[in-house]
């Protein structure tokens, strides 16, 4: 039982990471009907840049976090500028799918060349000895991940609700054309949502890095599984992705332990297939019915 609870704690921490990446998907899809197939790579870059700052640069972990966030903002804006905006102009769905995939591959390759192909150890900023919670072990870092992820999502919610710019973003996601009629520059909103989306992923990256192996390949499958979580969560529900993320995270840690580590990615992927088979497209909110 103790082990199970321990797995649950790890699962929740992992799940929050999925939720954060999923949040990023929701953000861009809501405002622009596009998403970044290289979202996982944004996380990976956040982790590795953080590693360089902390390990090589000797910077304090807590200071590194906002810097990584800023890096994420620029990376996201770059993806939008190079990969998404031209495709939106061309009205080509195929275009942004392929170009965000391409950018993801490029980022991964660049990361491999800068940081090498091996997985690296990220020094933990917190005490590595576990705390007892309800009789089972949980790492302080895991608690930080959960707390950090929730905090970030709350902050963004706050931004959306309280500031006029945040409201402009929500307006864009409600009705892009009407938002333009209000004087809102929706192109900037879209760039911003990509920047924000990569920022959250980078932030998740530096949070999760001490808990897992950090390397150029850490992002790929994460991005895919987070997509399943995004679909479960739906367009507007932050709670939905948190719940979905936790469910997935726990399913994975328990599969990895009780069945085999090789199979631990399978529940997430199967979940993705099931969700799309049972509730295709509808969960993201935009109606598939075209008016003819």
């Amino acid at each position, binding site marked *: 039982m103790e082990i199970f609870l321990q797995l649950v704690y790890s699962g929740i921490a992992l799940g929050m990471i999925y939720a954060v990446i999923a949040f990023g998907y929701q953000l861009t899809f809501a405002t622009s009907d596009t998403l970044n197939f290289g979202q996982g790579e944004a996380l990976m870059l956040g982790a590795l840049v953080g590693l360089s700052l902390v390990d090589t640069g000797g910077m304090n972990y807590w200071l590194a976090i906002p810097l990584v966030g800023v890096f994420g903002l620029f990376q996201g804006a770059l993806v939008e500028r190079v990969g998404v905006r031209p495709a939106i102009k061309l009205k080509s769905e195929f275009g942004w799918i392929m170009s965000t995939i391409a950018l993801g591959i490029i980022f991964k390759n660049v990361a491999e060349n800068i940081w090498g192909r091996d997985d690296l150890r990220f020094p933990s900023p917190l005490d590595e000895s576990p705390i007892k919670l309800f009789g089972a072990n949980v790492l302080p870092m895991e608690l930080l991940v959960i707390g950090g992820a929730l905090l970030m999502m709350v902050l963004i919610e706050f931004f959306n609700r309280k500031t*006029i710019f945040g409201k402009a973003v*929500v307006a864009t996601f*409600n*009705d892009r*054309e009407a938002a*333009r009629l209000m*004087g809102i520059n929706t192109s900037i909103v879209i760039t911003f949502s990509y920047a924000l989306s990569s920022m959250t992923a980078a932030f998740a990256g530096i949070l999760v890095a001490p808990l897992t192996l950090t390397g150029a390949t850490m992002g790929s499958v994460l991005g895919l599984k987070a997509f399943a979580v995004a679909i479960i969560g739906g367009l507007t529900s932050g709670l939905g992705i948190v719940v979905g993320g936790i469910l997935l995270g726990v399913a994975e840690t328990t599969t990895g332990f009780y069945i085999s580590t090789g199979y631990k990615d399978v529940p997430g992927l199967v979940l993705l297939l099931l969700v799309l088979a049972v509730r295709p497209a509808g969960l993201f909110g935009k109606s598939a019915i075209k008016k003819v």
Partner: protein
Amino acid sequence: MLKIHQLEAGYGKVHVLHSISLHVPKGQVVTLIGSNGAGKTTTMRSICGMIKPSSGEITLNGRAIHGMESNQIAKLGIAHSPEGRRVFATMSVMDNLLLGAFPRLTGARPKGDVNADLEKAMELFPRLKERRQQLAGTLSGGEQQMLAMARAVMLNPDVILLDEPSMGLAPILVEEVFKIIARLKQEGMTMLLVEQFAAAALNVADYGYVLENGRISVHGPAQQLKNDPAVVASYLGGASSH
């Protein structure tokens, strides 16, 4: 104030408007009426930048605005209450109104006193006052129409474009909406009103243009048009002279 000169516009291959010209003088209410498919909404969309005209000019106080982006046109002082309302459904009534004032809050237009204007809007649209925090998507059709118009007023605009405010509304609500339009007219607001319901529109307007198959078939002072059989004919076919 707002002039359209020999405008040609359409969607891709479909050529909808053929050399439309009209003029909205300051302080007046001008209405553009006509049956469906005549091109009324296309005209509105050309003015507010949603579609780019293929030829012709649209000017605001002499300044050319045809071909500009919608958000730029809004910043110049043209507010739009769009066809179908298009309120921001997941946001509250208050937030919708605040967004109407977006250019004022972000420095693109003179700020003025936004809070005072909010109160004024509430007064003009009492139904909205009762529902300030309600989500716009849960409002009834009539209430959403009020919200769309109030949102437009919040811009403190030079011109308001009202696109089919009566669409989908029960007759009693249509009356209410037009009462508000009359009130806005009293306040001196310049408005271009596009309407399918010729009767109500011609009652409140100063001047009217009738669109038929993408062309202006008849125009004149609203009082005159009210009694013109050509108006009915443009809607229901020339067979009113059996």
